[in-house]
């Protein structure tokens, strides 16, 4: 039940909002951009995953485990990959043979483009962000020359920082995909799965299942069983169900072992929209309201371990709370939230 002054504020908010007129021109612009974005996304989804791993380089692999991987028939490969080539990308019938490439971060790599489309121009370029129409010159990290098929060209890509990037054919930007630069070829150090004291059995079980599920490459099926996609909260604008988003970019799950290894904060009893009433267990402990009002040495060390520098810590303090990766399990064991950052 709202108090009188709350009602007044609510009414004033409605009054202010009513001051915003609709603009018919905005509709036309928005729908035009939206149509373009959906066409782009459809193109990405349709591409088959067929990545040829060159020589003995085991750090390059297709990331989508459910997608078909077609063994290369040497008779169909006009130019076998040499040991100097890290990735072979085939373009045929106006489609790349993969929409995901993974390369090692911090190393120059050679990406071979095998253009099998007769009399068709293709190229390979890497960007920081997906394009919004024409190729974005500001975010381009690598742009290879255009070749007319049939032809094979080796692109020498300079070292990239760890991260997720975007690749495309500049001639046909609807041919595109995700390029992940990561620490491949060396096994990821995973913290041991240790029980934490003070957790209810249901919460402890969910935590342990989650740690197991992300230990050696995400077990999406196990993660799916821990949450309700209709109510699960994650990074805001990434779709209706977190699983497809995580499958697209499993790197977002990487902080989970680290934050679950930190102390947790327990809320008081809260009523959730589904009628559940109980406590919520939040990792890391930095989620506790007011915990960053005065940043202790321990908190500063914890934040540094999560990759935050002094300026970012100060920004959090000014904001009034921790904004880094965080995860919530409620007392009945339901995993209710995982947010990797401010966005």
């Amino acid at each position: 039940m709202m108090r009188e002054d709350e009602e007044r504020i609510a009414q004033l908010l409605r009054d202010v909002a009513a001051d915003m007129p609709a603009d018919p021109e905005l509709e036309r612009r928005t729908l035009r951009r939206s149509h373009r974005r959906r066409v782009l996304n459809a193109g990405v989804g349709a591409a088959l995953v067929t990545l040829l791993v060159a020589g003995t380089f085991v750090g390059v692999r297709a990331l989508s485990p459910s997608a078909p991987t077609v063994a290369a028939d040497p008779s169909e490969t006009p130019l076998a990959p040499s040991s100097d080539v890290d990735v072979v990308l085939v373009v045929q019938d106006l489609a790349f043979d993969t929409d995901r490439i993974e390369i090692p971060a911090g190393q120059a790599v050679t990406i071979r483009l095998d253009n099998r489309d007769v009399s068709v121009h293709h190229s390979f370029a890497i960007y920081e962000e997906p394009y919004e129409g024409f190729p974005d010159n500001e975010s381009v990290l690598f742009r290879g020359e255009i070749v007319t098929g049939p032809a094979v060209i080796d692109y020498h890509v300079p070292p990239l920082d760890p991260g997720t990037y975007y690749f495309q054919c500049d001639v046909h930007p609807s041919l595109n995909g995700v390029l992940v630069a990561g620490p491949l070829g060396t096994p990821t150090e995973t913290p041991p799965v240790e029980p934490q004291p003070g957790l209810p059995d249901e919460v402890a079980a969910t935590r342990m299942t989650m740690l197991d599920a992300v230990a050696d490459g995400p077990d999406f099926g196990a993660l799916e069983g821990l949450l309700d996609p209709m109510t699960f909260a994650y990074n805001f604008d990434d779709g209706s169900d977190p699983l497809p988003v995580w499958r697209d970019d499993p790197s977002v799950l990487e902080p989970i072992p680290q934050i679950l290894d930190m102390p947790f904060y327990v809320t008081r009893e809260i009523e959730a929209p589904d009628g559940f009433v109980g406590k919520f267990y939040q990792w890391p402990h930095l989620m506790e309201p007011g915990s960053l009002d005065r940043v202790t040495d321990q908190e500063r060390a914890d934040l540094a371990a999560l990759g935050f520098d002094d300026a970012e810590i100060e920004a959090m303090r000014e904001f009034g709370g921790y904004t880094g990766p965080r995860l919530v399990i409620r007392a009945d064991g339901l995993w209710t939230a995982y947010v990797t950052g401010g966005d």
Partner: protein
Amino acid sequence: MAEGTLTRTARREHAGSGGRMEELYRAHAGDALRLAYLMTGDRSLAEDLAQDAFVKVFGRFHDLRSPDAFWWYLRRTIVNLSRSHFRHRAVERSWLSKQSADEAAPLAPDVGERDRMRRALLTLRPEQRAAIVLRYYEDMSEVDTAEALGVAVGTIKSMVSRGMDRLREELSRDDA
């Protein structure tokens, strides 16, 4: 019932029956623009932000036949984009300077209180403003607001409480 007389909820349900992008846009554009305006206080910025939000959600949201979920994600996206915008303090300061200049513009006589409220909203920190707008304009619960902003429920309570105190103070100063 004419389109213009449908409630917000009814319009969202109506839009879902067709499931097409144009229908979804027309059903939610007004709400999206108003929410963006409350979050930013700037009409042109609200238009840009709403447009970006629609493009993002249309691009990501593969099943356009779920109108309730569509609005849910659109709303979160608008809130998120506005927060991202204001996270850049320099941009915010510049924008506030512009707002101050705009305040010299003449106002219609019957919008006095509304304008005081708009200015009072702008005195809040962006996160506080988002919490107040979601709680009292979108009528979201504290739990939902916390989820939408990615903070703890206790933080929402604190932000709303402090934000309301600030609004009361600003409005009572104007009333006086």
